[in-house]
């Protein structure tokens, strides 16, 4: 056993540990760890692997329900979609790697989340990407955006999983620290559900995939550490992904699982070999010994620390079913992957590593997996409170509200994302029924079944910034509403919590409140949390002054369509239709994109969120679609009702005329551009209004008739009689405003 080095405690920080944590580890261990052990503990106790700041908060999450086949704790959650099928899904961030090298950072983000999915025994069939960038006109944003999009396209297109949705928003708080959250979905038969476990004593531990190099060394530590000028030095830590190798690994892993040869499986993600093997041992309540000399290496002279923590991509750990080891090895060899048996599972719960015939690490598996948990004092920042409580009555109503509509449509956050998703293969696998840009969620068919699967990812960071609890709950509500708008019943969520430094009480408050908001919304809407990922320290250090990102709890949600041919999209269909608003008119401009874009104010209260109303609106939307009374639905989000209507007209290449009967005394700009939640616009074919209204009344869904679609007309006309406002804009003008901005940014 390599002796401990007395000076080590002083260097605790270099292993990502505080001296307190170092002492705690030494105490639990009954001795001082050696350097390798300290590095391993540091990696496993990092936020990324250990969740020391976030895990305690997760207790609030509802994680069960008849639809949940696998909740949090595995590589991905799994929901039951009927007929013996399950959908595995999970979202993960690659924020800091993407800030350093956008192309490879984003590409390896896709690779990592896909491995989490096929490690569950599921075949990946869809990817969604949720992206946040800074000021759209800055060269850095162009560089990051085009790099990230290229990286996602490079990896996703090559491996052949369609990228079917996502979101892209712009806000100065992401200028230096963009967010790259990637969600993946996979399909499996219930009986193929695999787990990240070591199984039983005596099992072999098989390493398969790429050789190990010095890539992304200390990546786990790296991605949880503050991003600062120092990250220049982290640059060699960039990892390069190879979708071709991943494709071989995917096919080999699924073939092995379906052949019943695999007792346990997990990808090597953050903190590479160590985190995967000791998480698997922990889940099995066992220990192991591995021989580091057997790890396939790409470079000479690699030392244990490198072998243990390297984040070389496209590597997995497989545990063969006892007695079928050789079958598994032969199968994997056929795919020309590096395959080596590197160790064995043992009783006793020790995590033992040997190198050159010497034991170089001997730690309790529990110690590694039970990072200290911190619950801190959250305190809301005064100036955010002030922004929220700010009195907006003095904000003037612009004279030309038509011009405002055009401005909003051309804001990069609202404008069409076609220039981005056209670079993604969104049709490979020939299942994509509703393509990106066509509706509020993507819809995929399930070959050999009538069912359809829908997915979306959502978060409005401005809401969360101004009111973390309500904003996070609203993200869940919006995701569920988006699924309803295509005709899908919401099933469950995965979340990706992107926040600043939790040691900052203001940031910790945001984290606490956001988790509580997600938990309550998930309970109310019956969409349990099946997993997720936490990314903290998303802020940029400039000298001693820190810029934290807007708190961004991205919600990924999956739903099911009983019949994929019964669905809705957002474009106005041919033939005359009557337009309805389900839900209630907006009454405030608080926290709206309009207020920020037109009046330069990020302020005001986030509109009230009534989750019972949300549930009603979702029921009403689904009922209309499934009764065949509408095939056109679109929810109101950034830019409010006016923008939603304009988008439906642009997509349908026809005009419309509506009268917004707002409650007395409500400002017209609130009715037009306010961002009240729980609102869906639907189009009912003329003649079927009585049926539709009867159905909504029966369900107790509040609604108002707005007006009519105008096939053949090229004008979008919106009246607010209460405030004798009339705006009427030519379709071409709206279309240009909507479609140009991102083409210009992406070049």
């Amino acid at each position, binding site marked *: 056993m390599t002796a401990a080095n007395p000076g080590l405690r002083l260097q605790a920080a270099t292993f990502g540990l505080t001296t307190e944590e170092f002492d705690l580890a030494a105490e639990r261990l009954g001795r001082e760890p050696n350097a390798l052990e300290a590095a391993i503990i540091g990696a496993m106790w990092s936020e990324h692997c250990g969740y020391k700041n976030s895990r305690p908060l997760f207790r609030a999450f509802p994680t069960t329900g008849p639809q949940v086949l696998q909740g949090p704790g595995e590589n991905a959650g799994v929901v039951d979609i009927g007929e013996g099928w399950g959908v595995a899904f999970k979202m993960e961030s690659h924020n800091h790697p993407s800030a350093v090298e956008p192309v490879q950072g984003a590409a390896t983000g896709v690779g990592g989340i896909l491995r989490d999915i096929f490690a569950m025994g599921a075949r990946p069939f869809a990817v969604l990407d949720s992206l946040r960038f800074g000021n759209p006109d800055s060269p850095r944003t162009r560089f990051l955006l085009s790099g990230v999009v290229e990286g996602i396209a490079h990896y996703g297109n090559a491996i052949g999983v369609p990228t079917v949705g996502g979101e892209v928003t712009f806000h100065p708080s992401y200028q230096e620290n963009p967010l790259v959250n990637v969600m993946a979905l996979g399909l499996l038969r219930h009986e193929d559900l695999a787990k990240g476990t070591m199984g039983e004593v005596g099992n072999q531990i098989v390493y398969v995939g790429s050789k190990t190099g010095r890539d992304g060394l200390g990546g786990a530590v790296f991605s949880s550490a503050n991003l600062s000028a120092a990250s220049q030095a982290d640059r060699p830590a*960039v990892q*390069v*992904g190879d979708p071709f190798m991943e494709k071989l690994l995917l096919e080999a892993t699924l073939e092995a699982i379906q052949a019943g040869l695999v007792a346990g499986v997990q990808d090597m993600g953050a903190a590479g070999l160590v985190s995967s093997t000791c998480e698997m041992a922990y889940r099995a309540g066992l220990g192991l010994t591995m021989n580091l000399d057997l790890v396939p290496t790409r470079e000479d002279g690699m030392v244990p620390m490198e072998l243990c923590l390297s984040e070389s991509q496209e590597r997995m750990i497989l545990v063969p079913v006892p007695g079928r080891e050789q079958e598994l090895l032969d199968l994997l060899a056929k795919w020309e992957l590096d395959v080596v048996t590197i160790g064995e599972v043992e009783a006793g719960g020790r995590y033992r590593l040997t190198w050159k015939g010497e034991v170089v690490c001997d730690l309790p598996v529990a110690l590694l997996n039970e990072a200290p948990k911190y619950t801190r004092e959250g305190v809301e920042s005064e100036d955010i409170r002030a922004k929220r409580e700010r009195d907006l009555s003095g904000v003037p109503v612009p004279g030309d509200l038509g011009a405002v509509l055009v401005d909003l449509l051309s804001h990069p956050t609202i404008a069409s994302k076609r220039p981005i998703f056209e670079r993604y293969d969104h049709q490979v696998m020939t299942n994509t029924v509703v393509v990106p840009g066509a509706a509020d969620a993507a819809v995929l068919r399930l070959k050999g079944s009538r069912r359809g699967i829908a997915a979306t990812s959502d978060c409005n960071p401005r809401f969360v910034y101004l009111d973390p609890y309500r904003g996070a709950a609203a993200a869940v509500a919006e995701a569920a509403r988006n699924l309803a708008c295509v005709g899908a019943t919401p099933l469950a969520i995965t979340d990706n919590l992107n926040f600043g430094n939790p040691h900052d009480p203001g940031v910790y408050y945001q984290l606490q409140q956001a988790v509580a908001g997600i938990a309550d919304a998930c309970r109310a809407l019956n969409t349990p949390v099946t997993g997720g990922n936490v990314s903290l320290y998303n802020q940029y250090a400039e000298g001693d002054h820190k810029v934290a990102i807007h708190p961004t709890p991205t919600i990924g949600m999956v739903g099911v369509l009983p019949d994929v041919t019964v669905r809705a999209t957002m474009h106005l269909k041919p033939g005359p239709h009557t337009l309805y608003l389900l839900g209630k008119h907006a009454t405030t401009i608080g926290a709206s994109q309009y207020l920020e874009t037109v009046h330069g104010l990020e302020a005001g209260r986030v509109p009230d969120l009534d989750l019972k109303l949300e549930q009603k609106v979702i029921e009403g939307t689904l009922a209309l679609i499934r009764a065949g009374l509408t095939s056109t639905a679109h929810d109101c989000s950034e830019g409010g009702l006016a923008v939603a209507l304009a988008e439906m007209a642009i997509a349908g290449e026809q005009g419309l005329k509506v009268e917004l009967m707002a409650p007395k005394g409500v400002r017209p700009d609130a009715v037009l551009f306010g961002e009240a939640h729980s609102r869906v616009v639907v189009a009912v074919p003329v003649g079927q209004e009585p049926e539709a209204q009867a159905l909504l009344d029966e369900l107790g869904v509040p609604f108002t008739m707005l007006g009519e679609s105008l096939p053949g007309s090229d004008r979008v006309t919106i009246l607010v009689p209460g405030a004798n406002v009339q705006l009427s804009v030519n379709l071409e003008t709206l279309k240009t405003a909507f479609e140009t901005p991102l083409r210009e940014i992406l070049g």
Partner: protein
Amino acid sequence: MPTFYAQVFVTLKPSILDPQGRTVERALSHLDYANVSGVRIGKYIELTLTGERAEVETELAAIVENVLSNPIMENARWELKEAREVAGT
């Protein structure tokens, strides 16, 4: 003003994975070209610059560093030849 032909060689840093090289190497062995190893694939860039040698050299160095290569992952070296030195051009 003199004209210069520059040749720039951009290669991945040794410790960075080269998926292309790895795949090509394996393919070559399948096509039984034996005894081939260490395949690495990089970029070879030709460009023409005009100016006095000194300024051209400074400009080229900057171009290679900032545009033609990604210092995070790549090494680059270059050679400069004055047009009239270059045979047949």
